């Protein structure tokens, strides 16, 4: 087990380095940071532009490999450099990272727990009302892109607010900036802001997990060991949970890693549509303004997230499944 862990963590580190390198190199090749200074009136002299680009470390005149190593050395010592607006990337990162993490963590936990529960119920009561409704709804959700889902949720919430005559769902920002009240009321206010973005992330997850969990559970339901468990006198409920679910939930751990990538893809849309200042909306602004350092920081962040979820999934599988542990 220890060997296995060490190997996995080593692999994790290599992949993080690789992915962030890929991100930096692609961004450096595709972006033209000097376009931010062109077309100004009066025109900025070339020497000033060069000085600014040199200061950011993104001057295309310098060889890419040299820029990369300077960037990499700084990142290893914990400094992601400057944004195109000459702010510290680290500062921006620390301000935004929790906004996104809160969204992604709550969204993925809600999505996986509700999805798995729904999948189990659908499988146990196959072709029942719950199963049929869940199938139709999850198929439609899986065919709806995140941005469309978020927009529809937003519209639904606005018309709901109009109908009840007061703002129940907030559709812009993380909290009301002019809000004053006790800490409880502040928490409530934050929750009212949180609900829609989290839902737009979680609904896709629920649809995704419930489909896979249903199929995995159906596989297990027809298996011999479950019949044996019932034959030796276990109640239906006990056999389902102790023997059935434990096996059927294993593949979900692998899907968890995969679906986290989907969530990371969804965050830019959700954050933009609900005007959250997270990593995702930063990424979009950074791509639009040819900001190499910021984009590389976001890419490194998502690489760490995706790989970490993969690592956790592997450890979870090893912990749950004796067949993996023994290897």
């Amino acid at each position, binding site marked *: 087990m220890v060997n296995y862990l060490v190997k996995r963590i080593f692999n994790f580190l290599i*992949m993080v380095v690789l992915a962030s390198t*890929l991100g930096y190199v692609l961004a450096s090749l595709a972006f033209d940071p000097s376009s931010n200074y062109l077309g100004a009136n009066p025109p900025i002299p070339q020497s000033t532009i060069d000085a600014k680009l040199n200061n950011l470390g993104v001057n295309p005149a310098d060889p890419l490999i040299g820029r990369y190593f300077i960037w990499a050395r700084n990142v290893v010592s914990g400094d992601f450099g400057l944004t195109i607006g000459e702010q510290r990337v680290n500062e921006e990162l620390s301000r935004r990272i929790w906004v996104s993490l809160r969204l992604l963590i709550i969204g993925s936990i809600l999505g996986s727990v509700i999805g798995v529960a729904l999948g189990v119920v659908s499988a146990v009561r196959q072709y029942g009302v719950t199963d049929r409704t869940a199938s139709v709804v999850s198929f439609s959700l899986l065919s709806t892109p995140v941005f*469309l889902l978020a*927009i529809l949720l937003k519209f639904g919430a606005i018309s709901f607010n109009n109908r009840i005559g007061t703002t129940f769902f907030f559709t812009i920002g993380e909290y009301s900036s002019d809000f004053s009240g006790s800490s409880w009321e502040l928490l409530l206010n934050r929750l009212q802001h949180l609900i829609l973005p989290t839902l737009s992330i979680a609904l896709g997850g629920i649809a995704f997990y419930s489909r896979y969990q249903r199929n*995995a559970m159906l596989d297990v339901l027809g298996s011999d060991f479950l019949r044996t468990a019932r034959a030796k006198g276990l109640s239906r409920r006990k056999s389902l949970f102790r023997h059935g679910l434990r096996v059927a939930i294993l593949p979900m751990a692998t899907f968890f890693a995969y679906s986290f990538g989907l969530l990371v893809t969804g965050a*830019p849309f959700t954050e*933009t549509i609900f005007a959250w200042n997270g990593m995702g909306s930063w990424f979009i602004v950074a791509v639009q303004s040819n900001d190499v350092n910021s984009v590389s920081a976001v890419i490194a962040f998502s690489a760490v997230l995706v790989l970490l979820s993969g690592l956790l999934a592997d450890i979870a599988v090893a912990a749950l499944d004796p067949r993996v542990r023994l290897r």
Partner: protein
Amino acid sequence: MSNSARVIDSRPASNERLTRGALIRRRFLRNRLAVAGLIIVASMFVLAFVGPLFAKYKWNELDFLALLQPPSRDHWFGTSQIGGDVFALTTRGLQKSLIIGLLVAVFSTGLAAIAGGFAGYMGGKVDRSVMWLIDALLVLPSFLIVAVMSPLYRGRTWLVFVVLLAAFGWMVTARIVRSATMSLRERDFVRAAQYMGVPAHKIVFRHLLPNVASILIIDATLNVGATILSETGLSYLGFGVQPPDVSLGSLIAEGTASALTYPWLFLFAGSALILTVLAVSFVGDGLRDAFDPGSVKSKNE
């Protein structure tokens, strides 16, 4: 007497008639959802490519006398803020999204077949390096990579966008193809070909890939839906199909600003998008059930 003779006659005849293709077609046609999906996809194509021929206005034509008008006889889906005909725009966007979806699905599945086929057949170093590449590319969501590379095709043809989407969308299918080829590698017909001195690339293309054709067809179909989802997402943010051209994604992006008061700006593009992707996934699932009725849907690998 004559009756029983006919029964005896008809048995071998009906056996002969039921080729594998016919069997699959029959299984597919029995699946009501899949047939409905196929009909919807077909009608989307008709709407996208034949519809504009009957409309009064072209997608890049502006009617300055009708700004923000609701659906009417002249403008079937209404008009936009600057007088663009929403029907023409929606069909144009649907065309782009469908073509991009199809092209990317074909390219990426082809790439996946080659990479997965060779990795699975050759094993050893080839396999390890392909798998390593797949793992490395899967770390970063392809959305992020393509968005970062979007300045490269700004102001150029949308075909560059297609190539990028395909280049970063083949990995999952390649894994599936690889494990399927690995299970075929030791079969007798492959051995026989090897002993006759058939070179590796011929074995992969002539003997292995045709045997995983069902996987390729199913995945190509499902990839159409996945591609439409990512293409519209990128276009929504302005990283995909570039203006003045439109895709369903950029139409939805333009429509959302005032969609609550003028729902036709957004409604048609949005429902066309959801319907198309839903229908494609029904067709894909129907194909999977038809090719391999014993399989459980979750068994992707």
